[in-house]
């Protein structure tokens, strides 16, 4: 496990299983945090990157439901869709996640809402994919140009090391 922690959001990138886990505490009870995940009007306010317009095609967050949304920027559109496999109010959301640019890949996401008492909630979001390459690509797809630069820099370092 490789863990980086600053402030509150904690990321765990497992080295034995292709998953990424994000843990974060919120000063709100599980009911509110859950609602912010299920109400499309609220989801659009936080889920997408700030510089991208997020447009929800549909967002039916209940067991057996599905969703699709689009991030738009500079005339380009990036679609994402998935199914809600298990939705338990204020407790758990199990869903799939596919970036339509890579339609054959799917991540299994588990979002757990843990009541910490005193009106606080711990959100544990786990994304599991079927290969390390897919995991790394997935992580990269949700990120900005910084990642590409990171890859390029890594390529340079590796190329220099091989010489």
């Amino acid at each position, binding site marked *: 496990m*490789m863990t*980086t922690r*600053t*402030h*509150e*959001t*904690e*990321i765990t*990138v497992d*080295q*034995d299983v292709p998953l*990424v886990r*994000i843990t*974060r505490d*919120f*000063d*709100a009870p*599980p*009911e*509110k*945090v*859950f*609602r*912010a995940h*299920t*109400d*499309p*009007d*609220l989801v659009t*306010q*936080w*889920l997408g*990157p*700030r510089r991208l317009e997020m447009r929800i095609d549909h967002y*039916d*967050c*209940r067991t057996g439901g599905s969703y699709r949304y689009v991030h738009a920027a500079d005339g380009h559109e990036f679609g994402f869709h998935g199914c809600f496999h298990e939705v338990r*109010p*204020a407790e758990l959301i199990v869903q799939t996640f596919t970036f339509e640019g890579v339609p054959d890949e799917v991540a299994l996401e588990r979002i757990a809402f843990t009541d910490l008492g005193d009106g606080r909630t711990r*959100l544990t979001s786990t994304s599991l994919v079927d290969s*390390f*390459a897919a*995991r*790394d690509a997935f*992580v990269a797809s*949700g*990120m*900005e140009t*910084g*990642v590409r630069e*990171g*890859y390029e*820099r*890594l*390529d340079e*370092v*590796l190329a220099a*090391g*091989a010489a």
Partner: protein
Amino acid sequence: MAPDPLSRVFAALADPTRRDMVARLAAGDATVNELAAPYDVTIQAVSKHLRVLHDAGLVSRTRDAQRRPVHLEAEVLDLMTKWIERYRREAEERYRRLDDVLAAMPDDVEPVPPARSRLAQEGTS
């Protein structure tokens, strides 16, 4: 499939023995024999692990006559840490927006939006 560089680094570090070797090399260069000493494995097995680490760009061998110590390419590890940190920052930004959304919501909110409740009871309205 030709995995990208970062995937090779992750794959190389997927093995606990290799992670341990990297941790020890972080303290300083070491020869293959020195690296093999704490493990109940053959020199060949250690060499095989080193080859995976080398192919991922994580270690190099210096041309120091016979000793040829193994050197950790710390910059590659740093880049991976930075990569994870960028992902973390992205998540942190997203969750700060969620903080704002939560702060603006009324206290006695239902966990499921009313529209969804109506949908669940479709046919009753």
